[in-house]
């Protein structure tokens, strides 16, 4: 058996499943489609550059030098929040390793009992009671886990994300538990910046027009027209978005839950996560603990592991032998990407953009026989037996 030894150290991010791109040796994590994110950056920086070039010299002299200073501070804060939102791990849940996936499968089978041949087995749902409310946990066929409450699978990034809010193309990343507060601060500060620039644009035009006349002013500072246009359209969308998220935070809801109408009050279901207190809800979402990333991106992959599965031992349950007995590596295996059932995946950008960026070169997945897929749900036992 010839083993090819890989000379260089491989970090775990290189072998992670899912459609994320990583930069800076795993420190930066984004979605694949980044075009709109670059547009966002360009719009913000471009508008601010025009503001500093055209408005600030005049206003600093005629009104107050504090104006450009504040503008610069808000601008820096906006960029910091944007980069923080875009580059951080939104709260991705790593996929189940084969043993865990098998364990869950065995539990499901045991719970289902004997399904008569030809009949569909019941859907994979677990019920948990949270604050006197029954919450259904769905099974994710791609990640092979029962999703924790409030988690959802993002089809664009192909990951389950904890406290999934939505996938935002403007920041080029999912918004989830770990980066929601940065996203909110971004929209809030961007609203502030937009209002600030818009206001001072108007002030500047008015002041100049008093001296020179309106048309001359526009000729002297053509940048102002552009800025006003950008700010006008941005204002409606961003301020509206900030207002919407403020409403969600006060109720401790996610965009995902709002769109699906999970806690809309039908059938007397109420939000079990809300503290029924505005201040408490805001504090929990914005000032809660900073959750760590559970996705180990920068750890080193082990090439030789001291533990090996004994494929000979007839360990598992009576129905099926352990499908993982073939592999001897305990490194994070690549579970082949399966398409999740296409239920309504709420994302603010409803139209999935075609990715024109070059495909990431993911190393080929080892042939782990799929444990389950939604299409073959009816023949799940048959499929497993065939796969052995």
């Amino acid at each position, binding site marked *: 058996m010839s083993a090819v030894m890989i000379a260089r150290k491989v970090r775990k991010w290189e072998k992670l499943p899912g459609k994320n791109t990583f930069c800076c040796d795993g420190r930066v994590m984004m979605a694949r489609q980044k075009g709109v994110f670059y547009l966002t950056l360009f719009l913000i920086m471009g508008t601010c550059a025009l503001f500093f070039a055209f408005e600030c010299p005049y206003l600093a002299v005629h009104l107050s030098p504090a104006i450009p200073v504040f503008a610069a501070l808000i601008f820096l804060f906006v960029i*910091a929040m944007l980069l923080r939102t875009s580059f951080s791990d939104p709260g991705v849940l790593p996929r*189940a390793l084969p043993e*865990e996936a098998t364990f869950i499968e065995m539990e499901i089978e045991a719970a289902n009992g004997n399904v008569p041949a030809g009949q569909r087995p019941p859907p994979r749902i*677990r019920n948990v009671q949270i604050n006197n409310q029954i919450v259904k946990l769905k099974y994710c066929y791609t990640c092979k886990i029962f999703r924790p409450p409030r988690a959802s699978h993002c089809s664009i990034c192909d990951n389950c994300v904890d406290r999934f809010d939505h996938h935002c193309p403007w920041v080029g990343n999912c918004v989830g538990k770990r980066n929601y507060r940065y996203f909110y601060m971004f929209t809030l500060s961007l609203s502030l910046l937009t209002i600030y620039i818009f206001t001072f644009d108007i002030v500047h035009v008015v002041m100049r027009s008093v001296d020179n006349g309106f048309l001359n002013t526009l000729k002297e500072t053509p940048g102002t027209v552009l800025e006003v246009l950008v700010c006008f359209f941005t204002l409606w969308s961003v301020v509206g978005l900030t207002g919407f998220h403020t409403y969600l935070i006060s109720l401790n809801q996610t965009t995902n839950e709002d769109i699906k109408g999970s806690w809309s009050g039908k059938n007397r279901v109420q939000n079990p996560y809300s503290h029924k207190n505005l201040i408490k809800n805001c504090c*929990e979402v914005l000032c809660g603990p900073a959750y760590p990333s*559970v996705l180990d991106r920068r750890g080193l992959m082990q090439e030789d592991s001291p*533990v090996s599965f004994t494929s000979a031992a007839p360990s598992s349950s009576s129905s099926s032998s352990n499908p993982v007995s073939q592999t001897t590596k305990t490194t994070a295996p690549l579970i082949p990407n399966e398409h999740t059932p296409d239920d309504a995946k709420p994302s603010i950008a409803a139209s999935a953009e075609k990715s024109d960026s070059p495909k990431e070169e993911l190393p080929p997945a080892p042939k782990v026989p799929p444990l389950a897929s939604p299409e073959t749900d009816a023949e799940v036992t048959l499929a497993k037996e065939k796969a052995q």
Partner: protein
Amino acid sequence: MQARVPTAADGNMATEFHNLQELRHSASLANKVFIQRDYSEGTTCRFQTKFPSELESRIERKLFEDTVKTLNNYYAEAEKIGGQSYLEGCLACVTAYLIFLCMETRYEKVLKKIAKYIQEQNEKFYAPRGLLVTDPIERGMRVIEISIYEDRGSSGSSSGSSSVSGSTAR
């Protein structure tokens, strides 16, 4: 538990790992048990304290429950929303979260304590019984994975695992 190669810096740890390494070399992995999350109190991190049937012959119920309860307490401490977390949050916001580049968050501090605690528990109680507890953070905080080892010498009969049905009752 990932194989951490003991470096020269881990002077003391080398001797303790020796026991766990021995465990790995002389025993073979027979089965794994996964302790699931307990969501009855919301989305905060808690694990079920129900004693799995596979461990019945391997470890005392009380020891296992103590371990899980202590872990639950650690996580509750990390996720507590109170004066300190507000202060941390507000301070971080004012500095545009740049302060996290220099400062360790409270959660990270507690995670380090948890890692140490699990290692202690493994050395003191679990490894001598042929068990190994994996830190939940290495499994996405979804499960506590307990690996059950059998002596290579004994016949590879790992019974107990066939009846998983017992643990599905919710």
